């Protein structure tokens, strides 16, 4: 459930960009990774390293907010930079879809290697912010405080995005562009602006996920986004790529399936189990569980 919440937040970035641009932004996994580094550096900037004792009370709340905000800012900025430097020039030239895909993969590898060169290939550790104390038990299984914080924060962010897309002018612009970009433009929607907003939203959510990941998993390395990117992309497809609520459902479903597979069959069978279910679902519902396009999603 906890990892499922993180998958879902990252999946929203894939699904938003796909909904608007029909582009699988494979560099989104590095947007997540950079957010985690941003969160870690923010902690270092205020003097929190691994030797620091966990904070309490209001200080704890402030630090948690800072970690998530720093991740959001780092990822949001990177997402916009990627859009401006990598994708917009291709759009202006009317490049084929394949060019976008290769550019995305190239940007992903470039960012990984840059961070490996700058910060090394070993993991960097986050300081412990939340003690691993058990809050309550569900059917005998202990639920720890960090898990509650991650899931609750993630659900909050998802709800905020859902309301934003459904109720705001920019959200309507995103939906209109996803449904029919040419008509949207004729109706006065600034497509370039909408695309930038879409990348920012996806980046900010990935950054939020990265901050929560840092709080929960407590390490990050240069390729730390890769597996999460693959899993989140899978979650987006499982739920229905291009569908905001589908991404949420897909993320949580994948997290639960993985956990169930690991418990029943053993850790090494976790992915086999989860991806077998994915294949079976797609055989019967090729457009995913909800299968709806972003443009048709309703509040």
């Amino acid at each position, binding site marked *: 459930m906890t990892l499922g919440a993180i998958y879902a937040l990252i999946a929203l970035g894939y699904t938003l960009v796909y909904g608007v641009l029909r582009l699988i932004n494979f560099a989104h996994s590095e947007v997540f990774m950079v957010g985690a580094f941003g969160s870690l550096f923010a902690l270092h900037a205020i003097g929190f390293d691994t030797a620091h004792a966990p904070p309490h009370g209001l200080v704890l709340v402030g630090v948690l907010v800072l970690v998530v905000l720093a991740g959001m800012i780092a990822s949001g900025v990177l997402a916009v930079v990627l859009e401006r430097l990598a994708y917009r020039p291709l759009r202006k030239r009317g490049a084929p879809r394949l060019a976008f895909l290769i550019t995305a993969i190239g940007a992903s590898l470039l960012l990984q290697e840059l961070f490996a060169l700058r910060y090394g290939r070993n*993991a960097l550790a986050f300081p412990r912010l939340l003690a691993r104390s058990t809050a309550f038990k569900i059917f005998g299984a202990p639920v720890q405080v960090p898990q509650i914080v991650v899931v609750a924060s993630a659900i909050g962010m998802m709800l905020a995005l859902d309301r934003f897309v459904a109720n705001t002018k920019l959200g309507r612009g995103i939906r209109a562009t996803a449904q029919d970009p040419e008509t949207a433009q004729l109706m006065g929607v600034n497509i370039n602006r909408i695309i930038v907003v879409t990348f920012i939203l996806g980046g900010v959510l990935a950054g939020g996920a990265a901050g929560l990941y840092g709080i929960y998993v407590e390490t990050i390395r240069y390729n730390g986004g890769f597996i999460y990117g693959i899993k989140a992309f899978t979650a987006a497809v499982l739920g229905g790529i291009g569908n905001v609520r589908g991404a949420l459902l897909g993320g949580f479903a994948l997290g639960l399936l993985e956990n169930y597979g690991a418990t029943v069959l053993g850790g090494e069978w976790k992915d086999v189990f989860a991806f077998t279910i994915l294949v079976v679902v797609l055989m019967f519902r090729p457009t995913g569980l909800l299968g709806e396009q972003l443009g048709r999603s309703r509040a």
Partner: protein
Amino acid sequence: MSRSIRSSWRLFAVILSLALVSTACGSDDDGGNNADDGDGGGNAKKYSIAYVGPKTGDAANLGINILYGAQLAVKQFNASQSDVKITLKEFDTQGAAAQAPAQLALYKDDASILGIVGPAFSAETKAVIPELQKAGLVMISSSATNADLPNVVNPETIFHRALPDDKAQGAGIAQFLKEKHAGKSVYYIDNGDDYGKPLADGVRAVATANGNPSKGNTSINEKDDLFSAAVNAAQAAKSDVIFYGGYYAAAGKLSKQLSDKGVTATFITGDGSLDPGFLTNAGAGAEGNIVSCPCNLATESSTGALKTFTNDYKAEFTKDPGTYSSEAFDAANILMKGIKAGNTTRPKLLAYVEGLGTYDGISKTIAFEDNGNLKATTVYFFVVKNGKFAPLTNTDEL
């Protein structure tokens, strides 16, 4: 000139520039280590040895440890005399069997290369042994520990390693359990690959026979961040000791998650975890964890020649030596000693290494079996103390 033609010329210019840069980089690679390049070494005879292993990729940390050990040996050798100048040529396999043949093609036919420090890992070594045998190119690996490597080709003469194999490590860990945790129960976790699973299974077989009952075993996928199923299983097993066969990144996370779950069993793991990355991932909960290695890690607490090596290494690279650094230093020195003694062709250097007898290295006394395995089977144990690896004991002392 039309826009499309201008674009074509621009593209051509870019490709030409990249080709020129690539050529320049290629010639730099060929030069490898610059310990003697262009130093006007007078009448010194010039020969090369090669480092074959990862310089980039996920396993780069271990590769760099080995490379630096070999670089330091070459630098000190060249500075210590003026008759022979050795160049260390470096070939980056990324530690992967898939990359090894492409690099092999670069060094196999380079007649200046007389011997190899490496290949670094078992899988990449296995991939090139047949071709190395055909080329008569002697190799001394400082880190490839798979027990089957001497049997890849028959007859085999070129294979040698400067540390005991995984079978010896498994037996050594079982001996450690018998002596230091007599009668205590053990739960086994492995990473399911060709290194971790045989190691854990090997320890389990011998330790169970030695009177350390097994409380069960499970596998994890090292790409995961959370190992909840394995942690819950280990907690339920209530063993006195948990042994993990796998690599440092996952070992560190596993140690931390066990500690967070309140599991107090002694955590023991193998040489794949003897890396600072283990300490980073494990955090404060790693205090008291034990890591074994058939290698003799040079640390601040080392004594004698190993201490001198530690100081020299630190002065040269501004970092502590890592896993396999001291073995790589010994491997390079064996090859260079042979070359200095006049074994300046591949067949002669191979014959020299085959008939080495004993070499008093900084890591250990090195003598090879007929199949290239090390005669010594000493396994070293390190304990995490104050956030660092500290020597604990070795199987000779048990």
